């Protein structure tokens, strides 16, 4: 997904959620070691995946992103709350890029 589309999406989504333009943006680049699973908590914040990542599973209350699954009909790019990221590769690290929207209140 192109970065400009993500920024535009976040702008409209935050307005839809009632935050208007009262939010900060951060670019987050997570690096997961081989087989590593990390759990991060982003309460009230929005994290949108910038590009599809293979051999990585991202889980949150909003949904699931995992390109290796065959029994799912839709993947979720937008996550919030508690996000669990797992590197499914056993031999090399994984890189995950998010744009994070942090509302003022």
């Amino acid at each position: 997904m192109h970065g400009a589309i993500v920024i535009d999406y976040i702008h409209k989504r935050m307005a839809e959620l009632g935050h208007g333009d009262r939010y900060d943006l951060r670019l987050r680049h997570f690096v997961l070691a081989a087989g590593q699973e990390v759990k991060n908590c982003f309460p009230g914040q929005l994290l949108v995946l910038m590009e599809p990542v293979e051999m990585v599973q991202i889980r949150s209350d909003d949904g699931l992103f995992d390109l290796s699954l065959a029994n799912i009909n839709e993947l979720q790019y937008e996550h919030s709350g508690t996000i669990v990221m797992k590197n499914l590769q056993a031999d090399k690290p994984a890189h995950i890029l998010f744009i994070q929207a942090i509302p003022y209140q």
Partner: protein
Amino acid sequence: MSNKLLSTVLHHHVLIRRRGQIVSFQITIPRDVVRIVGIETGIRNRYCRPLMPWRRDQTGGLLSLRATGDKGVFYSSYVKVQTNTMIPVDLGYNGNGTWIAGFGGWDWLVVNAAAHSGHREPDILDITAPRVLHGTYTDTWGIGESRDITYRLSIYLWVTVNDLYNTPEQCMVQ
């Protein structure tokens, strides 16, 4: 033209085919719906028999619903499999060879009548109706049975309708 609030039920169903399947779907809410007051979910087990010596309560999977214009999940619950199987205790068998309800065990008339007597109630929601509901359903029944089970998840939304919208002029706008 009438200006009154009516209640009705919207129905949506989701088809599950494979074990552990994760299905995302959308439910479009009609424009004249103003509130969602309750939800009822269920899975009808097609494989049951009317009378069996045992019965297992089974869980179908996890259903989560989100509304447009809002973040987070407003409804998340495991869906039970409705098993209309009767076990002898339901028919008055007291376990020591006698029947206490005045009828014999394998009475097909009684079995069929009792199998349709399940009682259910909707879960209370009471939220403003969004334009679209986004739902995610994760199957656990097929994983537990270690096979692909094809079934339908039924979702019944109890809604309040503002009948003011249902004028000929408004219907033309829609």
